[in-house]
């Protein structure tokens, strides 16, 4: 079997290395990185926008370019998350948790370099895993029904609520608020509008990107306005080396490997997506760290793990897409559309019927990852210099780009008003020290979580036993309970131990 894989891979490289494929791969990764840096235009929108450009191309070349846009945009999202605290998508939120504090401490260059290298290493790991274990893993993914998905989301939410911020109550408020916002719009099962208060623009729900731009980018500008009035607003120049220090490099190695593995496995599960992969990788890293209290203050581990998970999950997402024809996310759904547009039907037979395309595409990802690294590492210094821009100019540009990025989502001013509303909300959250990531995760997963919950109960005819009916659900439930009560018990025990003897 391994000999088969090697011969397929050699054949794939002979296709991916063709000059036109290499050229369009480069164009795809370059455009993807650029698009990913613009708030509001994620990989799905980027692929949709550039799909017409590929008409008339050979299907393999077109799909190679579109896949390049996908992982280029995933990396581009992280650049804006690190430099200006504006994650372009849910999957870059965890990167901003430590990436932005690193930039504020003058370590923007190091954070960007960690991000680029983590993306490259984990992306390469993900592609190797995709080449070797795609088919067996797709069978594992098929064992996930609605109850398993529901419990996976419960676990993701409990992990992020417990691992961000200092107060469980505040984490729960953030989570519940995100779920409330996610419940706005048409109820998919009864087709009834819920919590829309007669506003037609809310029938489709609240767009995640609108919320992200509001609570991160706009709220950050508001914080800077306060600092300006206080006289504390200064550029964040690079301190020390631009590049990673030896210590930063050493501390990033294992988080990258662990994050890459977690990201790939979660990416394989249709619907789980990059956001949950990055959160679980961050949670794992914080759990195994000897200094978990430093997470959120600008630790290299906090950048390396989610970045690795993000890129590896992109490769993982190709497993259900290629082997089952099931898109795991909005972006892979757009890619599925592109496959069908070119007369290629992904599914169990794809590896047999279109080996040129499958292996050419997989091998182009190795090359694409290498290109991303070669493209972005030399630019780290340039990107980091962005922080030398006078803060007032940076604030104005952020607000302008945030406005146009939000408007471009639906060509609708209502979204811009909503974004500004969420900007005030994000400012309020900061003032009350409420963590924002639980709200974002709840917003990402709220809709699918309710669907899984209701589908599970429909399948079991209303019996709640369905949530403890399989080994996977029991394991996930146990992990959720441990993630909630483990830290509480641990801190109580530590407090008792450190209390002076009577």
């Amino acid at each position: 079997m391994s000999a088969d894989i090697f011969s397929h891979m050699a054949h794939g490289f002979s296709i991916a290395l063709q000059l036109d494929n290499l050229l369009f791969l480069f164009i795809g990764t370059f455009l993807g990185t650029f698009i990913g840096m613009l708030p509001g235009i994620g990989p799905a929108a980027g692929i949709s926008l550039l799909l017409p450009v590929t008409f008339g191309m050979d299907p393999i070349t077109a799909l190679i370019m579109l896949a390049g846009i996908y992982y280029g945009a995933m990396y581009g999202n992280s650049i804006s998350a690190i430099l200006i605290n504006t994650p372009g998508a849910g999957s870059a939120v965890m990167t901003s948790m430590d990436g932005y504090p690193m930039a504020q401490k003058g370590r923007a260059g190091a954070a960007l370099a960690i991000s680029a290298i983590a993306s490259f290493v984990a992306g390469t790991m993900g592609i190797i895993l995709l080449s070797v274990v795609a088919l067996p893993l797709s069978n594992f993914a098929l064992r996930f029904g609605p109850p398993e998905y529901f419990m996976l989301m419960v676990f993701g939410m409990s992990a992020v609520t417990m691992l961000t911020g200092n107060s469980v109550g505040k984490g729960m408020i953030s989570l519940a608020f995100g779920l409330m916002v996610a419940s706005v719009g048409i109820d998919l099962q009864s087709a009834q509008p819920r919590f829309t208060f007669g506003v037609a623009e809310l029938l489709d729900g609240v767009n995640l990107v609108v919320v992200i731009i509001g609570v991160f980018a706009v709220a950050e500008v508001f914080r800077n306005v306060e600092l300006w009035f206080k006289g504390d607003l200064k550029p964040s120049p690079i301190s020390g080396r631009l590049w990673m220090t030896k210590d930063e490099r050493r501390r990033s190695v294992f988080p990258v490997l662990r994050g890459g593995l977690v990201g790939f496995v979660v990416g394989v599960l249709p619907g789980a997506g990059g956001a949950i992969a990055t959160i679980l990788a961050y949670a794992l890293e914080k759990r195994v760290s000897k200094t978990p209290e430093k997470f959120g203050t600008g630790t290299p581990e906090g950048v390396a793990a989610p970045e690795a998970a993000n890129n590896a999950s992109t490769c993982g997402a190709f497993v259900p897409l290629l082997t089952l024809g099931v898109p795991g996310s909005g972006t892979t759904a757009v890619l599925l559309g592109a496959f069908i547009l070119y007369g290629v039907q992904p599914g169990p037979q794809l590896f047999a019927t279109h080996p040129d395309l499958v292996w050419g595409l997989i091998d182009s990802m190795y090359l694409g990852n290498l290109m991303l690294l070669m493209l972005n590492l030399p630019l780290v210094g340039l990107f980091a210099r962005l922080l030398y821009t006078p803060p007032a100019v940076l604030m104005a540009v952020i607000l302008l780009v945030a406005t146009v990025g939000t408007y471009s989502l639906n060509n609708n001013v209502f979204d811009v008003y909503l974004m500004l509303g969420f900007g005030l909300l994000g400012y309020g959250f900061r003032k009350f020290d409420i963590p924002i990531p639980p709200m974002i995760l709840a917003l990402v997963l709220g809709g699918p979580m309710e669907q899984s919950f209701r589908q599970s109960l429909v399948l079991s005819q209303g019996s709640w036993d369905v949530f403890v009916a399989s080994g996977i659900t029991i394991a996930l439930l146990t992990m959720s309970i441990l993630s909630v009560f483990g830290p509480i018990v641990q801190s109580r025990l530590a407090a008792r131990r450190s209390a002076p003897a009577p």
Partner: protein
Amino acid sequence: MNRQILLALAAAVVAGSYLFATWALPTLSLGDPVGQKLFPALIGALMLAASGLLLFNACRRRRAVASDGPPPADSEDRPVAVLLVWLWLISIVVAFEILGFALSGMIFMGGFLSYFHRGRHGINAAIAIFVPLGVYLVFKRMLGIPLPPGVLWF
């Protein structure tokens, strides 16, 4: 009132309003044993639980530090300044579809920079003109995203 208690009460009000809106939803089971109300009701209950937990912690902490006096106000707070910037943004968004993106962007940047980046008139004017134009060209011409042209000819 301490911030923690204020937050707990605000969360309770949000939870109460949300639960009321949930209760007001029509009941349509249509073969779905759960219906559209149960999940939102659970979310409302989660928010109420969070509020209760915060209140409990705040009261416990208050008893513990009662002798220390009230906590100092956050010296970074400038809510009025933030609100003014927010209102400036709102007014620009109102003008967005009438004047068009490029022109309203120039007015926004010009106004913002002349206050927060004082004294650099030449640089501010150049940024206020060329950045919105550049963004307009990238989004509209390169990416093909329609932006309102407004009163300008392009």
